[in-house]
């Protein structure tokens, strides 16, 4: 066969979302790739300019549909920075708990989608089954399974229900036992190792050059984790290790994510213990007064303008399950943010696709792209 371009997407089982990977192949060999994004562009940054600060939270859940709470946290950190608000400590712990549960949910979801790309159907269903327990927990304290709308500027919407921490610990016990099974099904399988070892190699220097972050970067042996290097929320009070591997290939990414799952469980146990011991308010008491009635009509001028509220620029960066996400919120003294800009880690990870796909086979695309953990919602925003 001579060279030809094939479109993998936007309707293709490999893509896990709406995007198109144009691949130039010769036989089964990949000569060039060109990712095409934008099929899921909803203009979240533009819509945010017309919304109250709290209303943007509803958009954040739709940014990444497997890591909604992490994105809420990202936005809230930047918004509070821009609006000069400090949340109470318990709210910080609750948010960190959200982050880590979200990481567990997202990584399990990643595992399910990734093994399904390799043709492994049963671990896919095991993964979906176990993620459901995390979603049950989310539902019990946020009220929804995927679109949580839990965090608010200045705190969180509600405190935990009674008996939550005990149930959460039971779920963590169950999940920890399942992680062993996951490893048996993947690492214990010679075919899996044959498929994944030495595949999609992206060295640490290339990762840094091309802005690749998250588990992909750590799988290349680089010990960078914002939770440790630039602690936000209460990560500086938690005891955890940064998972790194040195293979820089698909197996290494698998190992890093699995280790992160274990570390997340370790952190969650500490957080749950803290939450049990320290009751308190989950919402800032010294909230600016306008946030009490943020939705009512405000007259011709903006709420904040009328109150001479200080302007500000907020910048935040969190270690999202997929990598480092950043938000940049400009507060110009109106009740709407003037400009919201998000940096999605998957955006940068996909943009380097040429670096880790060219030279492999067509059959390697699903495992490699699977190991990138693509979430198109946050790429296109």
């Amino acid at each position, binding site marked *: 066969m001579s060279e030809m371009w094939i479109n993998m997407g936007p309707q293709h089982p490999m893509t896990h979302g709406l995007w198109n990977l144009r691949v130039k192949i010769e036989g089964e060999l990949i000569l060039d790739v060109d990712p095409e994004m934008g099929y899921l562009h909803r203009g979240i940054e533009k819509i945010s300019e017309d919304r109250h600060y709290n209303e943007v939270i509803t958009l954040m859940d739709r940014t990444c549909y497997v890591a909604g709470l992490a994105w809420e946290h990202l936005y809230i950190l930047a918004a509070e920075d821009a609006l000069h608000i400090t949340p109470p400590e318990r709210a910080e712990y609750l948010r960190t708990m959200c982050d880590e549960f979200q990481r567990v949910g997202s990584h399990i979801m990643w595992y399910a989608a990734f093994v399904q790309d390799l043709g492994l159907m049963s671990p896919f269903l095991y993964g979906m089954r176990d993620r459901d327990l995390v979603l049950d927990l989310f*539902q019990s304290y946020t009220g929804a399974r995927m679109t949580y709308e839990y965090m608010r500027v200045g705190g969180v919407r509600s405190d935990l229900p009674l008996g939550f921490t005990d149930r959460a610990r039971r779920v963590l016990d169950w999940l920890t036992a399942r992680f062993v099974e996951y490893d048996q099904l993947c*690492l214990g399988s010679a075919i899996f190792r044959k498929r994944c070892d030495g595949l999609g190699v992206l060295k640490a220097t290339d990762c840094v050059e091309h802005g690749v972050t998250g588990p992909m970067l750590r799988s290349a042996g680089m010990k960078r984790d914002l939770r440790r290097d630039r602690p936000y929320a209460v990560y500086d009070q938690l005891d955890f290790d940064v998972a790194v591997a040195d293979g820089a290939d698909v197996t290494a990414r698998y*190992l890093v994510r699995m280790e992160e799952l274990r570390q997340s469980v370790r952190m969650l146990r500490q957080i749950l213990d803290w939450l049990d011991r320290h009751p308190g308010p989950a919402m800032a008491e010294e909230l600016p007064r306008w946030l009490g009635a943020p939705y009512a009509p405000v007259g011709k001028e903006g709420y904040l303008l009328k109150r001479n509220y200080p302007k500000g620029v907020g910048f935040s960066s969190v270690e999202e399950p997929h990598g480092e996400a950043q938000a940049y919120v400009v507060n110009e003294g109106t009740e709407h943010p003037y400009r919201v800009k998000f940096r999605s880690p998957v955006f940068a990870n996909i943009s380097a696709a040429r670096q880790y796909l060219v030279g492999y086979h067509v059959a390697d695309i699903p495992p490699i792209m699977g190991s990138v953990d693509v979430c198109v919602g946050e790429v296109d925003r």
Partner: protein
Amino acid sequence: MGGAVEAKEKPNENPILWVARPMATAAKQFAKSLVRPSTIVYPFERLEDPKFRGKVAVESGRPIGVGEVWDNYRGVHALNIATCISCNLCAFSCPDLCIDMVTVPGGDPKHPKKCPQIDYGKCSYCGFCSDACPEGCLTMTTRYELSVTKRADMVYSPERLHEVFRSKLPMNPIRLARPENEDAILLDPPLCIGCNACARDCPTQCITMLDVPKPDAKPGEKLPKRIWKEPVVNDSDCVRCGTCISVCPKECLFWGTRK
């Protein structure tokens, strides 16, 4: 804070046995699910049924479900028409603009009573409306089955929402606490023309028009011919809905801190 841990495979997960280990794991799961698979046969088995939850938890060994706090679920709204004060806050707070205030019988002809009508084709179940509702009459229930055959059926009139309320479904108890020191409605007296619009439309009737001393008129300024009145807001009854601000023709009401 810990250091870095090298993620390595455990020795017992090496593929020494080629494919035997994954096959053994699958067989273990097979044996387990012969007793009871984790599937919940949805229309026949429901998670919100506590009896069923216990059964599944025992049979499959999974810490399944959301326990006793299923009530927190944000599903279809329930509206208690009797206590609704037509304050409009739910409609203002809706990010998707899916709430319309429509007239319901029961108000007096001059000031018809208006209650929210929700278009579930647009609703995103964020719960901002029930957070904003000052009277607690608009809450969210655990009902989640909404499939209909016509798009028009997605629109729930206040009466339909009231039916949901009467069906005694568990109500979502979560409500965002309102800060103690909320802004109050303040008046910019020189601008006020005493038109009574705010007091007329105030849903809680917390605005009274009181006679005030006639302000000093500047030379040549035209004054209204009626008796001079000025709105006075009772802060403890006020729900901060802002209706008065939006109806004020002169924009003389605004948010601020009461001295």
